[in-house]
């Protein structure tokens, strides 16, 4: 067929309202998503600067983990979690410049999420040195590198 890029399909939601959904083929199979509801990384993630749009995927199992799938690269998906579930004293406050990039002012919420890694030795770690700032108001996210922090990019995930 020679299709390239996301394919537009018509989708009728329960309330009879027509909505344009798109489909991508990820390494986890086909994913249907609402292009108006993607998570935007205006600067990408570090090392993945070109990938700006992600689909937030709920975890099928209950718990604090969820994942995001790149719209543009089927190979790229990250497991994320709220680090404060595990490290209660972990705080990251966005500065003025970061708020600007997220499109929010000081009154609007900024949540912190961390990338979860599963190493080949089955070691599970959180990257607390480079958290992701997430603004629910604008659906924008930014990965930042903390300067002069004692938090490691390979902080073990404490099993509660």
């Amino acid at each position, binding site marked *: 067929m020679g299709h390239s890029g996301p394919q537009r399909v018509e989708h009728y939601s329960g309330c009879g309202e027509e909505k344009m959904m798109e489909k991508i083929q990820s390494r*986890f199979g086909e994913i249907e998503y609402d292009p108006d509801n993607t998570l935007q990384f205006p600067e990408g*993630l570090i090392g993945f600067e070109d990938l700006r749009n992600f689909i937030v995927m709920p*975890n*099928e199992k209950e718990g604090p983990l969820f994942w995001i799938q790149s719209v543009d690269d089927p190979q790229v998906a*990250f497991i994320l979690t709220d680090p404060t579930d595990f490290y209660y004293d972990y705080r990251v406050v966005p500065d003025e410049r970061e708020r600007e990039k997220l499109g929010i002012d000081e009154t609007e919420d900024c949540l912190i999420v961390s*990338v*979860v*890694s599963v190493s080949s030795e089955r070691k599970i770690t959180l990257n607390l040195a480079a958290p992701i700032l997430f603004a629910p108001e604008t659906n924008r996210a930014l990965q930042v*590198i903390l300067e002069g922090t004692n938090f490691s*990019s390979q902080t073990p995930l404490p099993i509660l």
Partner: protein
Amino acid sequence: MLVLTRKTGEGIIIGDDIKITVVELKGGGVRIGIDAPREMKIHRQEVFDRIKQENKEAIRWDIADLNELSTILDAGRRK
């Protein structure tokens, strides 16, 4: 690569709005001052490279890992 020799207190101008100053030489290290626009990201090379590497490794997982991890966390919570 352009290589320039600078003494303590001397600087380099890059483009219209970046200024780099050699602040101090001490014990084999160089303290560098950087004036740049606020939106410009500045990181120590090795820190940036490490985070990049971490992200590259973080995309290597599959649904089985996620399920297993969720089960472990869930079991921990129920204790």
